[in-house]
């Protein structure tokens, strides 16, 4: 479904990614794990069109996304939940969700999708007229995911959804991600919360210093001793 081939990229002259290839199958949950600064955010931003790759290609359902503007990538069904949530803090919860449904195809189904998002996150219906900036971190993450769902994604890119959240909230968020996946949406999740991410995903890639150093079934990587030493401190 998503094929990312040989991506290199970075900022200025600082190279963050070297020849990174990742693919996500239809209905799959795939995770990209690695330490801070490994290039994970750069990678998803490139897929979403928010950042340009130096070389390599991004293909989604046979369509080349590499040179598309972010709005076009979103219309193709690849939608990002950015790192740090990046909500429109001055807008209400409902307005944030409406921005998610901005493009015409999503706007046509706005009411149905809104109802669906509120059934996933009932708290958002309660908070609908509050400024997004006044919500708790967990609620903000729910708005961020809800906003992305309003765009009716076929592939959801989640950039560090657990960042800054209490463990019990992280569990809720991950449970919701699993439920969203069960409705048929493919997921690519970038995490430094390695154990949780590996438990959620079916396949995983490990990114270090801009390179994929391991990939395989998430359950196998979870058992892998060298990985356990490096990431879980066991």
């Amino acid at each position, binding site marked *: 479904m998503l094929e990312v081939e040989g991506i290199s990229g970075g900022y200025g002259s600082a190279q963050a990614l070297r020849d990174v290839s990742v693919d996500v199958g239809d209905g799959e949950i795939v995770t990209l794990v690695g330490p801070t600064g490994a290039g994970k955010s750069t990678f998803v931003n490139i897929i*979403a*069109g*928010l950042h340009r790759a130096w070389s390599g290609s991004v293909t989604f359902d046979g369509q080349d996304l590499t040179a598309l*503007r*972010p*709005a076009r*990538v*979103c*219309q193709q069904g690849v939608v*990002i939940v*950015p790192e740090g949530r*990046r*909500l*429109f*803090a*001055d*807008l209400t919860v409902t*307005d944030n969700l*409406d*921005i*998610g449904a*901005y*493009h015409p195809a*999503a*706007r046509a189904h706005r009411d149905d999708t809104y109802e669906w998002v509120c059934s996933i996150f009932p708290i958002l219906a309660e908070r609908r007229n509050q*400024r997004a*900036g*006044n919500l708790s971190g967990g609620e903000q993450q729910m708005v961020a995911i809800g*906003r992305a769902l309003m*765009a009716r994604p076929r592939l959801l890119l989640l950039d560090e959804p657990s960042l800054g959240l209490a463990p019990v909230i992280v569990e809720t968020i991950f449970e919701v991600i699993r439920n969203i996946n069960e409705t048929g949406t493919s997921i690519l999740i970038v995490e430094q919360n390695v154990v949780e991410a590996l438990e959620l995903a079916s396949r995983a890639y490990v990114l270090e210093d801009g390179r994929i150093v391991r990939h395989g079934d998430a359950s196998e990587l979870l058992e892998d001793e060298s990985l356990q030493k490096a990431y879980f401190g066991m």
Partner: protein
Amino acid sequence: MSDVLNQAIVSGLLIGGLYAVMSVGISLTWGALRIINLAHFSFILLGAYATYQISTSLEIDPLFALLVVIPAGFLAGAIMQIFFELTKVDEFQSLIISFGSVIILQSIIRTIWTADFRRIDRDINPYESMSFFVGDVAIQVPLLLAFGAAVGIALGTSLLLSRSYFGKAVRAIVDDPQIARAYGIDNRRVAVVLSGLATAFSATAGVFIATFQSLSPSISLGWFGIVFPVVILGGLGNAVGALGAGVIVGVAAGVASVQWGPLSASLVTFLILIAALLFRPQGLFTRQGSS
């Protein structure tokens, strides 16, 4: 004395409406697009001269000029914003560049209409001296019309920004342009439309000015000291705030004029502005906590 004071308050209130129409365009583009577009002053003046010309040449009621001035203002604002987008100017570069355009447009106006005072003939302008009394207080009709337009613009703009998809897009761009783009908002198109709308408001102010005032190319210089206090007091990008601030400045300057003489009007206006900058720099009408 109290009659004079009442008159000053009512006249100040009404002219405050005109101040609001003059200020709302600058406030919107400054607040939402981070462009300080001084050319709005030129477009107010151009709107006034266009009204004078249309009304005089065609011998028609000056308010008919709105039919031309509003779309022309929209177009001018849209073109200016396209220029700003193409040249990628920042807030302070826009101030310098648009100041240059003020000087150029003023020269153009002086070339076309000369430096002589221009005034729409009373035969075709029924509004100039039209007024009625409420008790002992005279209501000047041209100012009342401007006040009505100010209320319409303030409420209309505020509804547009809070309710419509366009308004949500504007506010999303103000918060985080990159993510707004990622969800399909064409930030350039939204900016061009908003700038067009803002400039149409400014040009509209010119129409009302032409209905009761003599025009000369230099009158726009005197507006800086009114419009900037109104924009800052009202809060950037806040149309209803601009109306409130226009009324405060209008009434304060009017009352100061009758109490301490016309020269004190600016003094009082700027004292209010300084006090506001000290105690409420985000504007009098902006909710605490929002930008």
